[in-house]
């Protein structure tokens, strides 16, 4: 994981739920196919626009809903980090455990312009327009959570600790 990343921000509103990102019907599909349905209803066509290195920014209560592994779909699409004004705690843990950084930064969704390029400092929990502008400060993740991210998520950590037959299994 890079500590500071620059990428294009896609901005969403409040209470975006998991079923909007990983609809029930997509659970029958392969990861590649399922990934083409992220935000299928909120923002049709988005999966054709998002590119490797992009960042998803959302408002309050981001990811309310089920434990389905939405982070895998974001990773499949090349999304490198999630930022929200407030995360549902299950969604936040689920993302981090898959190795996808999830950073809480108040006012992010109302301040960041959609499709603009931003600079995100993951351990520092700050975001700002890449071309200069106000820097928003958030709540840094605890050190051991950053460690999980540094290892690429929980599975590589379990593999390193000898719980899995093959290192890095299951992405």
């Amino acid at each position, binding site marked *: 994981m890079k500590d500071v990343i620059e990428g294009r921000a896609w901005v969403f509103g409040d*209470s975006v*739920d998991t*079923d*909007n990102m990983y*609809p*029930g*019907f997509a*659970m*029958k599909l392969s990861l590649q196919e399922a990934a083409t349905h992220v935000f*299928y*209803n909120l923002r049709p066509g988005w999966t054709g626009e998002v590119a490797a290195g992009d960042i998803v920014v959302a408002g*309050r*209560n981001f990811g*309310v*809903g*089920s*434990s389905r*592994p939405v982070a895998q779909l974001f990773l499949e699409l090349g999304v490198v980090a999630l930022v929200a004004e*407030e*995360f*549902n*705690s*299950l969604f936040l*843990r*689920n993302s981090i*455990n*898959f190795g996808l950084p999830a950073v809480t930064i108040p006012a992010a969704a109302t301040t960041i312009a959609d499709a603009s390029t931003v600079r995100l400092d993951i351990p520092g929990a700050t975001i700002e327009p890449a071309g200069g502008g106000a820097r928003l400060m958030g709540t840094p993740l*605890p050190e*051991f959570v950053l460690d999980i991210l540094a290892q690429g*998520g*929980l*599975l590589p*950590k*379990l593999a390193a*600790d*000898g*719980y*899995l*037959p*093959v290192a890095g*299994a*299951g992405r």
Partner: protein
Amino acid sequence: MSMTIIEKILARGAGLEEAHAGDVVVCDVDMTVLIDLQFATLWKDPTRIADPDRLAVIMDHAVPAPTIGDADGGVRARAFVRRFGIERFFDVGRHGICHQVIAENGLARPGEILTCTDSHTCAAGAYNNAARGLGPIEVYSIMCTGKTWFQVAPTIRYELLGAKPEVVSGKDIFLHIAGTYGDATNHNLELGGPGLASVPMNDRRTIATQGAEVSADFTTFPADEICLDFLQERIGERPEPVEADLGAAYAAVRQVDLSELTPWVARPGKVADNALPVSQLERRRVDQCFIGSCANGQIEDMRVAAEMLRGRRVAPGVRLIVTPASQAVYAQAVREGCVETLVDAGAIVTNSTCGACFGYHMGLLGAGEVCITASTRNFKGRMGSPDAEIYMASPRTVAAAAIAGEIIDPREVLG
């Protein structure tokens, strides 16, 4: 320093004297539940696990397997159970929705910590347990190591007053809370107070289950005599309850007078800040009515459905789908005649599974259809087409809609 119920349970799990909002604690997990979906995707057999006696495997979301992928998951689950000697295995035939099976078998006990992949694991908070959903990778990790971490959230206390009228259920209490107070993201809920004595265990479980819909971390009840009686019947002992300390710090204390509540309904999309008394909703015709899920597929829900439909019929053009939450509930509903009453009235009684609740393998909605459900979620697209509308209410209100063909206050049908 005084603690809330959840702070006490997490402190005990972490081997600490105290835990308070804001603390990060690493806890031993007493029971971990793996579900079928876990084996259908992402699964790799581990080299070792923490403790087969603190593990249960429950086949629930997609049984009997509707896809080859799910069937292959079943093969992997059975092989895993054999290899590690997991005794608590609820295979197809002994199955049920995991939160129902957890309750029936006393897998969630007062003062203990229970985790499972599924987001409605908070259901077990009805039994004075710290239970929550954690996602497939984390649950896998707990299976291996026996531990995980929690950041202790501040707790909101609901003080229940008065006595619940017969026509009001746990669903109505929950919809009232969600509709009135909105989200509780990154907070725990604790319910208690003198009114709790009028809320039976099935209703407590509905409320605890649906804590997920207001985005709460843990939702927990005290273990009163009603709860201890329930547990004694299932585990043959009276466990030690965990009570909140006097003077525990709450983020908010809110009073709910149960005696004043009426049947409630949530409008489509979400429940937080989106629910109202059914009597205030404009009349809305319905195509499909669903009574089931981990929240409301309990035997008490089967009884309410049968009581409402006895001598009445499902309205023409309406589908009423009833899904008992487990094989045990199914068998009991057959023995009590609920199934016969429902089928005679034109309802469909299905196998015990998640099914229609999450729009995966049966009972899906088409574009333009209107559904009223007693399940857990009314997100857009949850039960099929994103162009369908999903209202949410109690089994009694759902049954009333099935009879009337439109959403009405169940007291009008009972009239």
